[in-house]
């Protein structure tokens, strides 16, 4: 299998971000939370590479520390939806019958809701905060995984090696875990990479709207919101966190895109 250049680029990008997040205290030039009224709204320069915000915090240091939160949200946020969706999808596709019907009706109900609207509504009920965002994701985000896993399981159920395993007397659980799951995994992993990007984006959007991570946290969405009132004069407060988000999101999206090509899921 030839490693796609897109995959490599994406992988390197994410790796770099991972290192930045780990080494944030070393890379940061200032304390990301230190308020300095002597240095308010300073333009990017040698003292403050990405400038400072309205209370004199160093934007560069905040962006660096923000990588921790973004990776934490993105990587942790996809786990529950993936596990739930994969389980439901595999069971539905493999067993068919009423299990399948029930799962499909559940899917039908979630489809009409715009994803972000439903996440917002759930967060509205549970209250703002990142934990509640994770709960909302688990309740809503499994749908995409379930659909993919089901489509694979429906085909694999009739594969010869599965039938062979059945006639040899292996249990359904064993077959699902050892034969169906590994063969159904590739589209799910590809989807997961795109999903990480979306989970990071929506998490930041929540922070932006004041319903995610709460200020003064160095979270990119929160930072963009803080710079909103100063966008006409001090553009750098909002600009750099957003740019960081694009760079991280592109990394995961490239991994997904490269994998899709390497695994021949998409041309």
């Amino acid at each position: 299998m030839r490693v796609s250049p897109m995959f490599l680029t994406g992988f390197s990008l994410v790796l770099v971000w991972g290192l930045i997040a780990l080494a944030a205290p070393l890379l940061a030039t200032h304390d990301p939370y230190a308020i300095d009224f002597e240095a308010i709204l300073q333009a990017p320069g040698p003292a403050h590479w990405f400038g400072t915000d309205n209370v004199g915090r160093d934007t560069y240091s905040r962006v660096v520390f923000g990588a921790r939160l973004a990776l934490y949200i993105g990587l942790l946020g996809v786990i529950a939806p993936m596990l739930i969706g994969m389980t439901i999808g595999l069971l539905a596709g493999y067993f068919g019958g009423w299990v399948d019907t029930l799962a499909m009706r559940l899917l039908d109900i979630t489809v009409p809701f715009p994803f972000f609207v439903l996440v917002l509504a759930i967060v509205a009920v549970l209250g703002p905060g990142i934990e509640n965002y994770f709960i909302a994701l688990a309740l809503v985000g499994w749908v995409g995984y379930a659909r993919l896993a089901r489509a694979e399981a429906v085909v694999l159920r009739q594969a010869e090696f599965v039938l062979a395993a059945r006639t040899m007397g292996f249990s359904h659980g064993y077959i699902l875990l050892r034969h169906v799951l590994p063969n159904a995994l590739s589209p799910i992993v590809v989807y997961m990479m795109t999903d990480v990007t979306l989970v990071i984006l929506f998490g930041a959007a929540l922070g932006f709207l004041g319903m995610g991570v709460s200020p003064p946290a160095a979270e990119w969405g929160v930072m963009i919101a803080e710079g909103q009132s100063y966008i006409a004069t001090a553009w750098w407060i909002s600009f750099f966190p957003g740019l960081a988000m694009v760079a991280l999101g592109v990394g995961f999206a490239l991994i997904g895109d490269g994998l899709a090509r390497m695994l021949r899921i998409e041309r």
Partner: protein
Amino acid sequence: MKTLRYILLRLLQAVPVLLGVSIVTFALMVATPGDPIRLLVGDRATPETIALIRDRYGLDDPILAQYVTYLRNLLQGDLGASLRYRVPVSQLIAQHYPVTLFLVIYTIVLTLPPVIALSVWSARRQSGVADQVIRLLGVVGLAVPVFWLALLFARFFGVTLGWFPVSGFGNSFGEHLLHLFLPALSTMIWVVPILVRNLRSALLDEMNRDYVLTGLSKGLGERQVFRTHVFPNSILPTLNLFAVIVAYLLGGSVIVETVYAVPGMGKLMVESILARDYFVVQGATLVFALTTILVMLAVDLLSTAIDPRLSP
């Protein structure tokens, strides 16, 4: 007659989905902490008043009976009342819905030309330079935060160049177009890559069909085959994506309307969440879902009109 029966059938099939959607919004309400009625009437209300309203919304009944009451109220268009504005939720929605509808349709109109041009271009030269660049742009488009892009657009096109207003909705059709241009442009960035990817792969599928070879062998030019056979056949798979896209756009409207202070459903929803105006949040969620269901229905019917083989 057959068509009418088919339409009725589709409408009937939508009923379970509608019920499911109403269960979800009902569950949102039940899960809400605190007593919404207490919030609704304020602290000075007499216990009798509270009891009266609780009775009207059936809040002391068993949960199943509560749901039935909720459903009955829904069917009569009663979505509860706004705690903030002291008006029926349906009235608020009637005020804000047209704005979002305008924004969504506007965005779609702006989206179609680039989507068609880009996907045709990249499909005809598969793996060429253009295809690679468009693919890369798609990846970037996926990762760009809409609210950030909206802010930058507002700053650049609105403040620096002064070409477009950066907030509000305007009072005439022309002003609407002008006010909503930047919001529509910001949301577009999100949808164009998804649509291009799908139309491109549909085009590639169709280009490998036998009829293309037939067309070429009977002497039709490559262009002619593409225009009269490949392209029309690729529309259908993309049309099916339309409902998903509308759902995307509605979700995006929440963010974009907030940035540009557009008085639509999205802004209403965000403000209501922040103000803990639960009935409005619930009503808005329901209306968003209903819109998607209607679009899905329309797409289904349109698909069968285009390709009668799809109807049973």
